[in-house]
């Protein structure tokens, strides 16, 4: 019982939950999105600043459970400073892990702290929590690219 719970609530997750990285809304940004998880009410407002093809900043304000909060913190650690293409590929890798029902072996080289979410994939009800900010980031990034191209 407690083992399963420990697989979900890895220390890394609880650390990010207690001390989230890059939290707060900052300028400049090209796109801001607001995503909600309608079933539970978790919310995130997320801004993306893309400069010269690189994710220059991701800032956010959010309310929600430990999984959704830690996931936003880990996301920003992973994508800030990365070329957009590489960041999108990390997003893809994280998505695959989360949708893998616990059967996907996470690649620490790519996912770093995000490998801690491997346990979350075994809890179908919590996958949405982990993906909330990631989906918001993808949406905001796509919009900021549209704006710069348009």
């Amino acid at each position, binding site marked *: *019982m407690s083992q399963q*719970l420990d697989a979900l609530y890895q220390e890394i997750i*609880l650390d990010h939950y207690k001390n989230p990285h890059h939290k707060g809304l900052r300028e400049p940004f090209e796109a801001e999105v607001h995503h909600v998880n309608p079933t*539970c*009410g978790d919310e995130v407002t997320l801004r993306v600043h893309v400069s010269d093809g690189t994710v220059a900043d991701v800032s956010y304000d959010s*309310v*929600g*459970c*430990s999984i959704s909060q830690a996931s936003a913190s880990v996301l920003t650690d992973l994508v800030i400073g990365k070329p957009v293409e590489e960041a999108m590929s990390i997003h893809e890798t994280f998505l695959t892990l989360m949708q893998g029902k616990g059967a996907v072996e996470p690649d620490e080289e790519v996912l770093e702290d995000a490998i801690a979410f491997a346990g979350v994939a075994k809890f179908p009800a919590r996958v949405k929590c982990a993906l909330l900010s990631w989906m918001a980031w993808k949406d905001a990034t796509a919009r900021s690219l549209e704006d710069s191209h348009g």
Partner: protein
Amino acid sequence: MTTTQLAGLLPELEVIRADFPILSRSVADGRPLVYLDSANTSQKPQVVIDTMVDHLERHNANVARAMHALGAESTEAFEGARDKVAAFINAPSRNEVVFTKNATEALNLLARTLDLGPGDNVVITEMEHHSNIVSWQLACERSGAELRWFGLTDDGRLDLSNADALIDEHTKVVAFTWVSNMLGTINPVTDLVARAKAFGAHSVIDASQAAPQLPVDVAATGCDFLVFTGHKVVGPTGVGVLWGREELLNGLPPFHGGGEMIETVTMARSTYASAPHRFEAGTPPIVEAVGLGAAVDYLSHIGMDAIHRHEQAITAYALEGLRTVPGLTVLGPLDATERGGAISFEIDGVHPHDVAQVLDSRGVAIRAGHHCAKPAHARFGVQSSTRMSSYLYTTPAEVDALVEGLEYTRSYFKLG
């Protein structure tokens, strides 16, 4: 041990528990199930399950249109369920009981068919379930009527201080919950009905949380319409009830068009059946209604007064236990005699989802989230809450398991 000491509990609680087969299963690696989510949906007694299986195995046919033995049996069972529901809520006439899909559909039926226009207003409350908010928002958007609502006091009651300004001669509908699904508050229904009546407005009571735990007497409330859902009164999902005064129901336009709701149909126009069939277009949820009939009979057999006393005893015991958990705040009235069996609370430093997850790992099922009452949560400055809800099969030992689980949750998240 505690069970015998607590006054008001149902006398044969273990016998009642044995009626609910699911309560004997285990979860979370062999732990006994502690089901404290009955305000979400109640568990089903064997008699409801057996009645539905028997109907499907032996009597299944469509109702009111099949001219054979099974058709007659099925119709008799379906219409018999209507009689049982009518008795359960003391409806003056069986024709006043309309089977719907659920309480939400019943509320939408009213919001769609009651006559509203520009200059009219609809009065609801801030503690409504989304179904009794959104359906009226849509009705007001469609018709140009104004939506108004009662606010809440800090202790989770309706703020009636501006009632005279809210309900006026332009009010057409006053719709409110009898028992709040989030705060547990029991509202003064007869007072609200009287205020609506004074201005000729229709009163609509959402009894989704009241019907499971209080004696409901539609005649005594004086209301015009009352709705509840089957699955919270130990019946199945897929069936709900709209009760309305017969003359009012027959004055409403049809909701859905189709079979069963007509008198006669030509290619140019149709005339419509009277209530209840007027509002039961298409093949109804037959076996679900039959199951609901068995469910309300089961509750009536135990006695709604006794069930109410049991809920109050468990709720008082739970409020006492929750008070011992450090950092825990109950949302809503703290006096068990003035509230229903759903208790929402917050714990400092742990999000409700995380509380639910840890409790689930110990076999304790509760609900976490906004419970389809976002405005009520916003009123108290919270985004979501944890909710325990008891029912006639809940024991004090289960409340103890919850309280222990909450202590464990606090230690798991290192809150000292």
